[in-house]
């Protein structure tokens, strides 16, 4: 028998919390996420230098970047800027893009999923059709097409990364709303005379919180990787602003002579993405006790 069964007086969220903190992998992921968020917030205090300052001693006599060493812990980039400082400030940009566009995508997904799930008829048919159409778009190509007609910059990146990302979670929300509205407590609320709005926001929405939290935690790392791809193509965050992807983009030109410029931000991306994914997987298991059985034997 599980712990939860022996402690029936625990609320669902308290039980989820207990499962989460006992999950070593989820705990490690959570600490990782906490680390990166702190780093992003405290970037100016933590970074040794300004991210865009070009140090005279940052380049050798022939103009080559410095390898990691005593003065510049992570070395310098092609313009003699301190790589560690750029990566630390890049955390701000990459995390912000990941979080903001995930919030937008999930906001839209909630709105559309709730509407489609709760109001049958023309609204549902139409919305489902739109969701399926967007899901079958070649989204990466359309993202690039959008970038081709828009000015370059961070907000365009945020927009482009959220404009197709809402469709999948919208369908998930829709399915969840369908199953929640079939339950008895919804009928009870309606029988007591609750309005549609009240039923939706007081009774249906709270049921969706676990789903949203899990999906958000898993959406952020996916967005971080996409932002890195766009910036790596030179179509995302524009210089001199540092993001993890744009640092790799700048370093790619010198991947043979100065490999640390692309290696370090890539490793940092992996750490961040793995942290978010571990936390997300842990949250999913914590909210859904039946799924944790499958996870025995591996992260």
């Amino acid at each position, binding site marked *: 028998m599980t712990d939860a069964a022996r402690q029936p007086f625990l609320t669902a969220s308290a039980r989820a919390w207990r499962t989460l903190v006992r999950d070593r992998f989820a705990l490690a992921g959570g600490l990782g996420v906490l680390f990166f968020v702190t780093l992003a917030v405290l970037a100016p205090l933590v970074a040794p230098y300004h991210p865009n300052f070009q140090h005279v001693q940052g380049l050798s006599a022939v103009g080559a970047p410095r390898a990691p060493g005593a003065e510049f812990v992570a070395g310098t980039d092609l313009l003699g800027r301190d790589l560690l400082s750029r990566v630390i400030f890049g955390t701000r940009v990459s995390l912000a893009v990941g979080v903001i566009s995930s919030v937008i995508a999930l906001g839209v997904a909630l709105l559309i999923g709730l509407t489609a799930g709760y109001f049958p008829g023309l609204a549902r048919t139409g919305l489902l059709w739109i969701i399926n159409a967007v899901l079958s778009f*070649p989204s990466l190509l359309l993202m690039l*097409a959008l970038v081709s007609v828009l000015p370059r910059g961070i907000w365009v990146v945020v927009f482009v990364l959220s404009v197709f990302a809402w469709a999948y979670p919208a369908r998930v929300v829709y399915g969840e709303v369908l199953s929640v509205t079939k339950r008895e407590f919804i009928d009870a609320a309606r029988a007591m005379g609750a309005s549609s709005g009240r039923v939706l926001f007081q009774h249906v929405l709270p049921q969706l919180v676990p789903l949203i939290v899990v999906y958000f935690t898993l959406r952020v790392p996916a967005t971080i990787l996409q932002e890195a791809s766009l910036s790596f193509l030179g179509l995302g965050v524009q210089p001199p602003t540092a993001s993890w992807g744009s640092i790799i983009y700048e370093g790619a030109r010198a991947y043979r002579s100065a490999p640390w410029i692309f290696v370090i931000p890539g490793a940092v991306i992996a750490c961040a993405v793995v942290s978010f994914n571990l936390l997300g997987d842990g949250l999913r298991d914590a909210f859904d006790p039946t799924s944790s059985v499958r996870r025995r034997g591996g992260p």
Partner: protein
Amino acid sequence: MIARLVGILLLLWVVSTVTFLLMFAVPQDPGAAIAGPQATPQVTENIRKLLGLDQPLYVQYGRYLWRLLHGDLGRSYVFGRPVIELIASHLGPSFQLALACIIAEAVIGLPVGILSAARQGSRFDRIAMMGTLITLGLPHFWIGLFLLYVVGARLGWLPIGGYGDFRHLILPALAVGVAYAGWYARVIRSTLLDILARDYVRTARSKGLRERSVLVRHALRNALIPVVTMWGLDFANFASGLVVIEAVFGWPGIGAQMVEAVLRFDVPLAMGTVLVGALIVGVVNLALDLIYPLLDPRLRQTE
């Protein structure tokens, strides 16, 4: 079946309308783009007339759709040649690379996942699953750069990019393979574990079959069905533009062409690539629907 075909046509129509609107929304004037910076206003105006840009929006839209139906995707601003020709000349390399990539994914991912499932909870299983977690966290272009640096530049075993014989294919395919093999390993592992708990597997075991033949003949066959789906979808996605990897390795596919078109504001070429990409995805999805019943007899009865 017919519904699926209509679905694809509808999708293509929606995508083409979106691309049309995007082209129309470009702040840059196509007339000026074609004429170049030194053209007189009269020349620009003539080009605009020639392209029909002086007509109302609905007329332009009608003409655009009419041309699409005849396979005319317009002319590239930068190269001055028909878009359809430019894309066609890059399709071959794209398909080649896409094929190499899905093979690499499966060759790396499936054995790892199968061994993990066969020895669930073992040290190998734990290390392999941790490994997939890390490779799935790495950007695929980063793996590409890393391979270029280590295998191409440092060891000098393979060419550092460009298009050519089989040896040029290895590194880009390996990069994509390593980056996404994790999905294959995880999916085949969890599907196998699911199947190994079923009754017919217990029956096979109680008949006294060796574990190997239970795994291969009874479990693996059924576990491969979701893998085929992933394969098909990946192939469609890759063929319609392995954008970043093609850019890293200088592979002349439609993805790299798309990036160049976007960077040089070659709007017709960019939009044409989107349409061709949508077509590839649609056709592959249709093909997958046709293949499923062949693989899974249960699906034949429902049709």
